[in-house]
């Protein structure tokens, strides 16, 4: 009796592992094909779409890819500027706003927090027409600042920072800095920010990746090739000029995935922990 039930349990566990491994393969497989096909010629890919052995056409694919409108270095540069700017602003000002909500008692504090909760869920697409028209009128289309400055108001990050502050920032620290004659902003920069570092790092990763992957707003705001971000560059691969150049298309896709893979595998522990923490948003 005991034996049969433990054998049943073992078979059940085996089934679970088989299923988990199947899903893991499913997650990785498209990227494996992509990386391998990036090294194969269009002719080879048309002969057989799938191969487990890399070929030797990486350089020629790169020449075809960059010979047209796709400029990975420029896209990379623009994306780095926008994502870094947005991340720095979002993290710093969200922490500052959270500190205003946490450390001071002021009349509109509760009302302000309620507003932040209410607007947390408003998606960007809903405001995009007005945003575009507004930016167009003040001459900010084709200006990266239009994609960076809005990050100063990141309600979800403020919410997260406030939760973290409640759990880990002791106001005695702030009080003793005051007694030492430290100004309020300098107390925030010198005393509060170091305490908030783990939360800031977690949020920075997510804000950076979200900004890096954003297609909708850059697509409507940026019309000048020189300003294109990486996702806009990627969208060019869908165009007619690359229609028959499969090797180059795979390579273009691979180039945009590569930096994300590196970031992800270096920081996956923090990213997964950060996702799990996201559950507290609810």
């Amino acid at each position, binding site marked *: 009796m005991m034996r049969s039930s433990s054998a049943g349990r073992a078979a059940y*566990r085996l089934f679970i592992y088989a299923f*988990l491994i199947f899903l893991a393969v499913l997650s990785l497989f498209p990227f494996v094909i992509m990386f391998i*096909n990036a090294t194969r010629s269009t002719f080879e890919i048309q002969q057989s779409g799938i191969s487990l052995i890399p070929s030797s056409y990486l350089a020629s694919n790169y020449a075809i890819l960059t010979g047209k409108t796709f400029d990975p270095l420029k896209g990379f540069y623009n994306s780095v500027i926008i994502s870094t700017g947005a991340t720095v602003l979002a993290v710093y000002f969200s922490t500052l706003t959270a500190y205003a909500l946490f450390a001071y008692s002021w009349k509109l504090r509760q009302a302000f927090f309620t507003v932040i909760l209410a607007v947390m869920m408003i998606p960007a*697409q809903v405001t995009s*027409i007005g945003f575009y028209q507004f930016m167009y009128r003040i001459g900010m289309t084709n200006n990266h600042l239009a994609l960076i400055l809005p990050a100063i*108001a990141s309600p979800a990050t403020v919410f997260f920072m406030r939760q973290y502050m409640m759990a880990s920032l002791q106001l005695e620290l702030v009080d003793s800095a005051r007694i030492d004659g430290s100004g309020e902003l300098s107390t925030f920069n010198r005393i509060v920010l170091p305490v908030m570092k783990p939360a800031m790092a977690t949020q920075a990763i997510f804000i950076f990746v979200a900004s890096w992957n954003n297609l909708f707003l850059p697509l409507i705001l940026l019309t000048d090739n020189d300003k294109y971000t990486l996702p806009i560059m990627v969208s060019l691969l*869908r165009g007619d000029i690359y229609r028959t150049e499969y090797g180059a298309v795979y390579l273009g896709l691979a180039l*945009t*995935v590569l930096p994300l893979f590196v970031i992800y595998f270096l920081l996956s522990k923090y990213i997964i922990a*950060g996702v799990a923490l996201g559950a507290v948003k609810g």
Partner: protein
Amino acid sequence: MKRKRRLSYAKYGYIFSIPFVAAFLIFSLYPTLYTAFIGFTDLKGLLKTSMNILEDPFQNFRLILNNASFRLSLVNTLKIWLMNFIPQILLALLLTAWITSSRNKIRGKGFFKVVFYLPNIITAATIAILFNVLFGYPMGPINDILVKTGALAQPYYYLSDKTASQLIIAFIQFWMWYGYTMIILVSGVLGINPEIFEAAEIDGANDWQTFFLITLPNLRTILLFVLITSMIGGLNMFDIPKLFNLGQPGNATLTTSLFIYNQAFSGSYLYNRAAAASMIVFAIIVIFSIAIFLLMRDKGAAQEKREARQLARQIKRGEYLGKGAGK
């Protein structure tokens, strides 16, 4: 004395909120109101900025609501979202039950979480085009595999098939998001008081009884969060339908966001219609969110208290993870 000091500090609450409030007013609130306003005007045509309120202010809204493409896009969006969300939440729940069960003793949980979550951080635009070439005709990798293994007699032209295109987009969404949902649910389970599980085990509950009678009811708030955020994301789906198959074939993958984009930024640049459509979609999102919230809300403050405790515990654990990378 003390009171005076507190009062003098209160002003910093306002001062430190100024950057947020200013950015919010300029980049979020004003554009939202402006979008709503444009919906009542005659603003259309590239590079045009002058506009007048229409004689019949609701004309754009009426035209949009009667527009066959818009209606189709709403149906498509809901359909694709449901085809993605239902399998996604079921699989995430199943994986959560397996991974968190103390009897299964699954090893490599960390590895599986990392791999399952991977597609989520990759640029959606890239993934859309990757799947477009993977499902290429006649010799895309998927056709290649299916023909070589004998599953298909000849290559299939997926991109010209309405149902196939919708299913593939739903699959991409599912594939990108089930890992995220699973991690959130697992973290929710870990936040439940372990004594409850111990008590259930002592009482002789099996895995499935424990899952349905203890785990699920305790995950209610987190399921609500997952449902609402997924719905908002689903109703704003843009990158994947735009780049996977350009809304084709026959508008089968035209979503509301893609419809709005096409109205405003292609053809005759109908900013006013696009703005009206945005507001209608916004209203739908608000109505759905409130409905879901009211349907699933737990009565009483007991639940809230439990959440607060759970929250504090999770934040502590996160801090621990953040600092001591060792574990």
